[in-house]
């Protein structure tokens, strides 16, 4: 039997080969990121040769046939929808995460885990269908009349169009989509807090909520913030679900009941005709570059913070 087992030299040779393969493979993710950015940017370049980046970013006119490419409506649309989504999602998600880590019995955790898993696993097009069938009518028929009647004098809540296809509908759908993510990250961060902090605070006579508010929340704030930023970057790039409920009108939105046209929706809706109009493809891939740059910035910053926080364990 011993005849078949490799000799030490063979094993060392095997080891060296494996080591080389690993180092080549481990460069793959970084190379991919650089390559994706560079490839998209090269396609964006022809547009930058004709217009200055600043003009593109603050231009509000989008008429590809006439050669007018203003990205501002799309950038604002993206930011509005994302902001509404994150604003709606953060409070309940933080509370849920606090509940899970500080109050819940093991049974509740066991029950909630698959629910969050399924919410995270549902495809975005399913969220889109739900949005079209449930959220859009709800926003259009229930929320919009109430808000315009009682709070219509606040510009943020005034309504200029009769349907529910709006920033608010997109925000609600986004909020549900990023919820499992936010809860999971916050829970992870809270789990790294040493038990002594809790015991110390409770031992001094603080209630659980006081412990959360004055000890855990303050100490975990960097991690929680990083989690929220990471959730925001997920929301920024969400395409299908938002595209289906947000109305897709290239305008500068003024209220949450206005339709908007986020960057991902712009790319997805127009890819079919982009080769037929000059510079149109450069403009659409430029939209992809903008999206990528925003998301990358959010991502790198929050991931660096989170890696540090989670390494405390």
């Amino acid at each position, binding site marked *: 039997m011993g005849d078949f087992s490799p000799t030490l030299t063979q094993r060392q040779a095997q080891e060296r080969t494996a080591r080389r393969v690993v180092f080549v493979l481990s460069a793959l993710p970084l190379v991919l990121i650089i390559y994706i950015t560079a490839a998209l940017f090269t396609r964006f370049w022809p547009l930058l040769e004709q217009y200055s980046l600043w003009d593109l970013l603050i231009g509000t006119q989008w008429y590809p046939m006439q050669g007018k490419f203003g990205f501002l409506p799309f950038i604002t649309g993206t930011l509005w929808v994302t902001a509404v989504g994150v604003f709606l999602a953060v409070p309940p998600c933080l509370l849920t995460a606090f509940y899970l880590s500080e109050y819940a019995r093991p049974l509740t955790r066991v029950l909630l885990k698959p629910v969050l898993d399924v919410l995270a696993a549902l495809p*975005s097009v*399913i969220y889109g269908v739900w949005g079209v069938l449930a959220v859009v009518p709800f926003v259009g028929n229930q929320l919009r009349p109430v808000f315009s009647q009682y709070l219509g004098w606040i510009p943020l809540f005034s309504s200029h169009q009769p349907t529910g296809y709006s920033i608010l509908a997109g925000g609600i759908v986004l909020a549900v989509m990023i919820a499992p993510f936010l809860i999971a990250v916050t829970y992870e961060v809270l789990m790294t807090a040493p038990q002594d902090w809790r015991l110390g605070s409770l031992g001094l006579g603080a209630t659980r909520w006081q412990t959360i508010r004055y000890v855990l929340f303050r100490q975990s704030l960097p991690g929680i913030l990083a989690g929220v930023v990471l959730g925001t970057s997920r929301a920024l790039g969400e395409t*299908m679900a938002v595209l289906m409920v947000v109305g897709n009108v290239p305008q500068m939105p003024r209220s949450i009941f206005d339709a908007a046209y986020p960057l991902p929706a712009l790319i997805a809706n127009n890819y079919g005709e982009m080769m037929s109009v000059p510079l149109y493809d450069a403009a659409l891939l430029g939209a992809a570059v903008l999206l990528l740059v925003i998301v990358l910035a959010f991502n790198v910053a929050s991931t660096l913070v989170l890696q540090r926080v989670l390494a405390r364990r």
Partner: protein
Amino acid sequence: MKFRWHRRHWSEIIVKLLMYCSVGLVFASLAVILWTIVSKGLPALTWEMVSQTPKGGFYLGKEGGILNAILGSLYLAGGATLIAFVFSLPLALFLETYLGQSRWANWVRLSLDVLWGIPSIVYGAFGFILMLSLGMRASLLGGILTLALLELPIMVRAMDEVIRRMPYDLEQAALALGSTKWEVASRVVLRQMLSGIVTAILLAFGRGIGDAASVLFTAGYTDSIPTSLMRPAASLPLAVFFQLGTPFPQVQQRAYAAALILTVIVLVVSLGSRFLAAQVGKFSVK
């Protein structure tokens, strides 16, 4: 000593109520979503839907089914998962054993996290220009490759999670017995992470089958069942999206049915992965 109500007791109760509401909200949103999909999709679901390809006039409400999209999605996600697996298994396996906590390993982890966060529409656009420069048209192969890029970071991360939770002693014991790192990785770690592999594969498959934005540019859409890697392929998410966009109620009904089918597939994959992982996990050292 008599108990006296203080402001902090009230705030404790109020916050607790708010927390119950939040948890309830999470449960309720899943229930509402599933209810919407099932109640709309079930009446529209017929045997014809899952067993036939679209016939003439399908998009005006005539007969036919979405077998093309179901099979197309399975091919796309299956192929992508296979390719992603080939690359991510060694990457995850050796990230810990060879690179450990070194500076380079942290770079690799950071770039994986960043890749994981890149929106699928950007992958779609990237796949599209890649195919343009190679002179390819929208095809099954293009879709598979783009989805594989999307799935790669998800898979590596899922595997890496399991490897990191592995008992440190196990690796040390194997090294102490004189094994090379390669032997540790391929004989010890690989066996320990079987459950992680199962979870990772199913997680990535579920992601891949539900993603619409990346296959929109790269896989195209067709009414026939894909027979070659170079031909376009239909997919379920796009079937839902396109059919919902038509003005005909009969066609929209089919979108609901397609959405239900997609939801069922994703749910089975997601819940099945927990079950399988638990089964396989029995054989690893805790």
